């Protein structure tokens, strides 16, 4: 393991030591316990998952250590509840008090919670970093979560206004902010990825997905007789649609074309999502820097598709098992409904089975997703990296302490947890 001889520019890689089966077992047991405890077990499961991923990730032959505990997450969650309860109550009262303006309060609440979510994201990252120990030193993060949340909100607005074209620059800018405030020991991090590079790589995807929708809109503008349409709508009454159709004989065909185009766009988006993920992951990991230590990713798109194929295969198996299990339950419902129609036992049983089935299915698919796609992305993201400048790793000095788990709790209550 030890290699004390120092060449001028030592290179190395990341290896993942964990076994898929062990991880799947951990997640499966966790899913059952999540159900039994209505989700309270998630703090323990999340800690187990992180411990597994961290300790099995060896950078240049030395594994990471995850030092976070479930109780910290519970504490953070309780603090988050204490923060969020007055906020929710405030919005509720505002909605009651202001009547029509109350609708606006809903929008404001949505936006406000979105900004709070970004705040939580930054704090949660800090929590995870400070609980990550490598070669006896801690990772740390400074910077202001408030500043980050403000920047992120502004970027999201810009991304929405440019139909996603600003997204690469958003990622680059936010990642620069995060990495600029990240340290391994006293070694500062930075992010060297350029937004325009990601834009160039992602532009073909964007065009493929936007083009069908643009075509549909163009067809509408071309085919619709706008004066007839506005006349038909302005007249009002019950038969607006009938008159709209009468005034625009070509409208039916255009609607069919538009629907087909939207379906095409959605299908392309689903099919190309792994490509997008691979491009972003490769670009992101290739931009990570700690001092003179540089990373370069050799991730291939087909590797990410492989992960999704595994997900589809196990999902198919799970669906078949679920279907077979559902048959006796459906028969039971039928018998109950047939024998005692007036008590509604059949209806109640159907509601319970439907509810249970929904929870089992949702939890099952998300567990399969974690055990296949998420694990593979973690593994691939690391193992395709080539690290250079590793001489530096032998003499990084310590700095910083642990941080509060508050952000993690907020992130949990606002559903933006992640790894």
């Amino acid at each position, binding site marked *: 393991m030890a290699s004390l001889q120092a060449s001028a520019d030592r290179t190395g890689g990341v290896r993942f030591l964990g076994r898929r089966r062990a991880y799947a077992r951990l997640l499966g047991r966790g899913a059952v316990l999540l159900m039994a405890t209505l989700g309270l077990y998630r703090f*323990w499961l999340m800690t187990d998952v992180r411990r597994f991923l961290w300790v099995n990730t060896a950078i240049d032959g030395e594994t990471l250590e995850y030092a976070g505990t479930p109780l910290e997450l519970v504490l953070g969650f309780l603090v988050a509840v204490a923060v969020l309860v007055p906020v929710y109550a405030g919005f509720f009262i505002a*909605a009651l008090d202001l009547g029509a303006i109350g609708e606006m309060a809903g929008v404001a609440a949505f936006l406000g919670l979105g900004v709070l979510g970004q705040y939580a994201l930054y704090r949660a990252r800090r929590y995870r970093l400070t609980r990550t120990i490598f070669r006896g030193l801690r990772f740390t993060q400074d910077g202001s979560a408030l500043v980050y949340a403000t920047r992120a909100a502004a970027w999201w607005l810009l991304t929405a206004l440019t139909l996603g074209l600003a997204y690469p620059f958003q990622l680059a800018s936010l990642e620069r902010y995060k990495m600029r405030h990240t340290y391994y020991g006293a070694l500062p991090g930075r992010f060297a990825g350029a937004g325009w590079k990601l834009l160039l790589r992602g532009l073909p995807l964007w065009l493929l997905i936007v083009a069908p929708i643009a075509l549909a809109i163009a067809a509408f503008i071309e085919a619709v007789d706008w004066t007839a349409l506005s006349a038909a709508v302005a007249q009002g009454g019950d038969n607006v649609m009938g008159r709209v159709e009468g005034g625009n004989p070509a409208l039916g065909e255009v609607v069919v074309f538009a629907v087909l185009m939207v379906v095409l766009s959605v299908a392309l988006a689903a099919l190309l999502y792994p490509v997008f993920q691979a491009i972003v992951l490769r670009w992101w990991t290739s931009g990570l820097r700690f001092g003179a230590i540089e990373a370069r990713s050799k991730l291939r798109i087909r590797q990410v598709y492989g992960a999704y194929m595994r997900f589809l295969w196990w999902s198919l198996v799970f669906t078949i098992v679920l279907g077979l299990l559902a048959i006796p339950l459906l028969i039971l419902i039928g018998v109950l409904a047939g024998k005692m129609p007036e008590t509604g036992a059949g209806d109640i049983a159907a509601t319970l089975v439907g509810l249970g089935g929904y929870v089992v299915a949702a939890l099952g698919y998300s567990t399969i997703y974690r055990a296949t796609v998420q694990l593979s992305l973690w593994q691939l993201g690391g193992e395709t990296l080539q690290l250079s400048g590793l001489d530096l790793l032998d003499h990084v000095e310590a700095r910083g302490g642990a941080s509060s788990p508050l952000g993690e709790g907020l992130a949990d209550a606002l559903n933006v947890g992640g790894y």
Partner: protein
Amino acid sequence: MANTVQAPTAGAGVFFDGRISTRRDVRVTLGARTLTIDDVSGRLLAEWPYEEIDGLPAPDNVLRIGRHGNALLERLEIFDAAFAAAVDARAANVDRSGGMQHRQRLAVVGLSMGAVASLLVVAWFGVPALATRVSPLLPVAVERKLGAAVDMQIRSSLDTRHAGAAFECGAGKTEARAALAHLTQRLEAAAALPLPLTFTVVHRPEANALAIPGGQVYVFEGLIDAARDADELAGVIAHEIGHVAHRDGTRAVLQGAGLSFLFGMLLGDFVGGGAVVIAAKSVLQSSYSREVEAAADAYGVGLMQKAGGNGRALGTILVRIGGATEPGMKILRDHPDTRARVATIERLAPAVAGPSMLSMQEWTALRGICKG
């Protein structure tokens, strides 16, 4: 004795001192009370008492230990299985077999299940009891505001065809509106509630009516079609006034808010949690509403008699519409058996053949309120 297998008392390890990331190959010696770490040249790097040694997360084939409560993140890694077992045997807080963790997890799962059980008890008994106590204390003004907020939601979910004026019936039908006003004013006068009621007939095919906190009552077109005479329609409206008088809508809203708070907020982002909340709400609420509906029936019968109408009319229309006085009722069957309800109504109301609450001419006009 030379060949007996003995647990090793010294071995190799890798040490990080927590000040600098330098990796050091070290020699570890197990003493009587302490573990000592020396570098290859024999210089002492650290000496840890066994009771202060913590086992730390590490890959399967590695023992990673540190010193408890140490601000410095000193880490010692041992790769040799036999030597790792020897360290484990001496340090109580090193838990390589996972037995300690297993016991902790059992306690967590047990306590969590207890918490879930107590949450369910609170949801089942506590929330309804609280809502029942709080709803009569709410000032009318608050109730009206609550009603306005709920009304917006309900309107948008009822008005599925096209939002707008066409959803409400009676535009330009003075005679029909006068007939409705005549009917409802008699009932409202007899009820003498602290808040004014608003009655609106809407374009919906179901034979239902709906009372919302704050005194808004929606009568569906389908109910007017299903009624044979004005008293049957008045019977259902009286039942709805009963819901307003008992503040059932307000209580349901408080219950819903309480339940979604309990499950949604405290339990957080459990996958599918949202669906659980909604289903829990409808299942729980359907179980309260049996008594609630019976109480509204009794109120409705009494109100009809006070207003000079036929108390049994509610019973006769109930049989025809299958007991579903509110939308969505059939799906969960949250009514007592319709026959039992009708029997109760007949017990409460003597058979009378008085004059109808509306004249034949008024009733004909009212029946046409949504037509044309």
